[in-house]
């Protein structure tokens, strides 16, 4: 347990250094935009497909239960509440941790063992800023956007399932989905994914950047990036949900 908290401390200081460096010129715009494409754009198909499928599945499951109480009209609002509040942010973060976290960890570790990071340093370029900071900032900014895509894809999936089951119109589905949803249910949970993005970028960047064990180190960096990012995301979610309930008490009702 002590080792875990030591690790969290070391990784946190690694991440904080990255945040400070993000505002120190020169700003690496070119590499940052490249990472936005790599992390955001290339994750989009996975997020949309997963969101849509989960929307269909959740709708089918809730229909069975709610039908027993004659409350199937609540399916759209239940679906939107579940996804906008919790499922969308958490599942998006876990999917990105799997796809992007492994890629960041293995990619940077591979650059370390093939001397590419040394080569960058030898060219008087700050490799930490170029490789780690750009990825962490891209993760922080892209996670909320991907979460929105996940949320809306799940509603699309939910609507499809409902329209097959009850022939509900799109307008009625949307009305019911957003009737009980408030900004407080939507903005804080979406923005909390920036913290998840910070965790993914920092943990993966740390394992990749600090590896020194050859090809075995690359494999370990990829695995550790996914496992520890996912674990820390779930733990952070507990704290963040509590914080959101504290700041927006109506969300807790």
């Amino acid at each position, binding site marked *: 347990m002590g080792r875990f908290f030591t690790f969290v401390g070391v990784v946190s200081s690694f991440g904080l250094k990255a945040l400070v460096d993000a505002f120190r010129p020169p700003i690496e715009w070119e590499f940052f935009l490249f990472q936005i494409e790599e992390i955001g754009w290339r994750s989009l198909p996975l997020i949309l497909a997963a969101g849509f499928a989960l929307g269909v599945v959740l709708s089918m499951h809730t229909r069975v239960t709610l039908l027993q109480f004659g409350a199937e009209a609540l399916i759209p609002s239940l679906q939107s509440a579940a996804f906008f509040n919790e499922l969308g942010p958490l599942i998006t973060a876990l999917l990105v941790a799997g796809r992007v976290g492994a890629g960041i960890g293995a990619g940077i570790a591979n650059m370390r063992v093939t001397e590419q990071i040394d*080569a960058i*340093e030898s060219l008087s370029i700050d490799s930490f800023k170029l490789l780690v900071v750009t990825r962490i900032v891209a993760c922080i900014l892209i996670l909320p956007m991907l979460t929105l895509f996940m949320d809306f894809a799940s509603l699309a999936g939910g609507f499809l399932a409902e329209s097959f089951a009850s022939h509900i119109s799109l307008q009625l589905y949307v009305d019911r989905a957003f009737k009980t949803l408030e900004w407080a249910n939507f903005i804080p949970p979406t923005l909390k994914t920036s913290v998840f993005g910070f965790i993914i970028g920092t943990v993966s960047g740390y394992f990749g950047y600090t590896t020194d064990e050859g090809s075995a180190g690359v494999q370990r960096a990829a695995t550790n990036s996914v496992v520890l990012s996912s674990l820390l995301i779930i733990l952070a979610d507990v704290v963040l949900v509590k914080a959101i309930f504290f700041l927006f008490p109506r969300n807790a009702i």
Partner: protein
Amino acid sequence: MSDPAAVEFDHVSKTFGNRKVLDDVSFKISEGEALCIMGRSGTGKSTSLRMMIGLLKPDSGRVRIGSEDIVHSSEEDLSRVRRHMGFLFQSAALLDSFTLGDNLALPLRRLDKSKSPSEIKRAVDETLERVGLDLDIAKMPSELSGGMRKRAGLARALVLHPKLLLVDEPSSGLDRITASEIDDLLLKVKKEYCATLVIVTHDVRGARKVGDRIAVLDQGRLIGLGTATELDKSDQEIVRRLVSES
């Protein structure tokens, strides 16, 4: 007062774990000189090279590049010194997500803000032409052969016109003809750029061809330093064997 040496090792020692890789090593390299560092594997040759560019710090002693003590200098000062240095890594270490052209353009874009995109492109083209890779500018590193990768790494090291060029195992993994071509390129660089060269190598032919002097390291200690002819007459057998062509 005489000009400072291009590179100076002053009682440098370095230990990794329990293993002493460099043990009180001292030598100077004059400006415009080509020094080849030879020795058996694991005797601190590449470590010495990495210390010269500040990728590693010695446990004790000083490393001076020109008049700058890079062991105790700040990151900014080290970065300034590195701008006048080029490093050809053993694996070439090209950035594998960039094309060859972008690999060369990166340091120009980052370090020479005065250059316009067209000037950068011209500089990249000229440097690639110099190493015979001008037709491969759009290729990715994975599409290049071992010899081409070495030449590409050399081109990247040369693109900023370094005063000091550090070369790690230029002929490793190459056939004799390609290795000889790389040696010819290094000689050309030395002549055209008036650069100081430090080359770590196991290739005796290359060392005798390119090096003005040869340094021999064994078990972390400098056991021989001189011209190839001088070292042929060394009283230490290991030195004679390492620099012997036969």
